[in-house]
């Protein structure tokens, strides 16, 4: 077992899932309740990582944060180093890559909250913020947990984007999935097998948790 890779993966997944709580929640809320006629375009953009090859997404992210891009230059002037091949760069890329896994279950859960409950809260004098925290979020609890857990788990399992944006730097950007790939490349099947099995068990447990939260199966994912 490569504990260094496991630690890097856990750091990346926790950071990504946490960032997604802050970015994913407002997007989910907007997707669930906005009546804007072009909303489907935003929904399509959010869902893009589901269908794009990870290498394509990774390529664009790499270009967007590279030293020649305005964003890359701005970040470098701020911190003194570039984003590619760093853990921060990986977090940004993973956030984009896991966005649909955070937004879709949460938006579905928000949508399933009875509209009258929300209106009842307003008629009782409670603001939109208060209504979100006291009516919508508690009733969408299962979807919120599912969104967090799924984005965490999806980040743990990502490969293409990590390789494109993070490279393969031990202790910095080498995650479990890349470690398995490396071990197979060097014909070290025993180690690859053990790590793969650990990842398999982990993924199974995570999905079991998500499904156990949701009695009506298939609604949230």
């Amino acid at each position: 077992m490569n504990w260094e890779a496991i630690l890097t993966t856990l750091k990346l997944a926790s950071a990504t899932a946490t960032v997604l709580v802050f970015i994913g929640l407002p997007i989910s809320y907007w997707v669930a309740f906005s009546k804007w006629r072009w909303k489907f375009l935003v929904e399509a953009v959010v869902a893009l990582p589901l269908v794009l090859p990870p290498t394509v997404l990774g390529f664009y992210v790499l270009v967007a944060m590279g030293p020649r891009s305005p964003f890359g230059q701005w970040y470098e002037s701020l911190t003194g180093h570039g984003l590619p091949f760093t853990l921060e760069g990986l977090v940004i890329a993973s956030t984009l890559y896991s966005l649909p896994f955070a937004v879709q279950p949460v938006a579905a859960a928000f949508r399933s909250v009875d509209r009258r409950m929300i209106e009842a809260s307003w008629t009782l004098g409670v603001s939109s913020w208060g209504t979100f925290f006291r009516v919508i979020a508690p009733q969408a609890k299962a979807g919120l947990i599912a969104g967090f857990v799924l984005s965490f788990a999806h980040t743990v399992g990502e490969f293409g984007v990590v390789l494109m944006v993070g490279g393969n730097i031990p202790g910095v950007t080498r995650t479990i999935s890349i470690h398995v790939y490396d071990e197979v490349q060097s014909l070290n099947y025993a180690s690859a097998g053990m790590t793969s099995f650990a990842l398999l068990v982990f993924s199974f447990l995570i999905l079991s948790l998500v499904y156990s939260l949701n009695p009506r199966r298939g609604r949230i994912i």
Partner: protein
Amino acid sequence: MLHAEIDKTFKSGARVTATLDLSAGPSVTVLFGPSGAGKTTLLRCIAGLEELTAGRIVFKDQIWADAAQRRHLPTQKRAIGYLFQDYALFPHLKVRDNIGFGIHELSLSDRSERIMRTATSLQIGDLLDRWPSELSGGQQQRAALARVLVREPELLLLDEPLSALDGVARDHVRGELAQLLRRLQMPAIVVTHDWVDALSLGNRLHVMSRGIVLQEGTPQEVFARPQHAEVAAAVGMENLVKGHVKERGDGVVRLQVGRAELYAPDPQRDHAEFFVCIRGENVMLETGTRGQSSARNHLSGKVVEIASAGSLLKVTVDVGFEIAALVTRQAVADMRLEHGAEVAAVFKASAVHLIPASD
């Protein structure tokens, strides 16, 4: 107190227009009509849950909405209490927290005290630790009412308050709600499609259909003298008059109606005035000598009008008040009924439905 000129057009093209005026003090205005008439839309506009396309809503001196000036006071800032059709209790909160939901700004002790006082007055003080799903329909209604009343609103809006109930529970809760509305001393607007609810609860009636108000007046005026065929159809009651209790006993009540007296089953309500409802098809007409019959009501008079009512004829007889009978054309021909003919209107006591008059 409330002046509302409401004009709401939906994207689908459906349009609802109405003008409502409520004076200060206790009054119950009923918006009555079939489903799809626009009643709930009016209520939602007043609550601020829908924005007006045109018109304005003023409550006391506060402008709640003014479409011309693009003003729309958020629902939260309107001093309303809104009872939803299926009560919309929060399933994730116990009854206590449901009732206390809208008074969160109060201190814990004030909140507990207010919750307890309101719950007790609605006789649900012992249900505070239950989940909404553990309550009966009537209890849910009281919990939802408590949640509204605990905030001490200045205007009550009730959307189909009885439609989630049926049968005996409905009759029971209707009586309680009517009493409560009289006791509360605040204006209320009630939406219903049920004429028994309309009569029991309201002292002002607006009959709506297809997005407009067809007629308004006291319930008695509207039911007795519908100005539109649609209103008549909506109220669906050929005979509706006010009666005064003269005597009760043995499960039967004797009422004075106009110059006549009639018998009805005692509704076990402590009222002196009732709306007397008799369906036209339950009234038989008799000529000649009176035979033996189990019908308790046998009122003699003269035919004042014979009018067509679909495949039947509606014969109106003045028996001290005007009573209408629905009979076949063949029967009218056989009995040689005509204007001024002497005839008796016969109906069983059980055919008389009494509704407590809310005035």
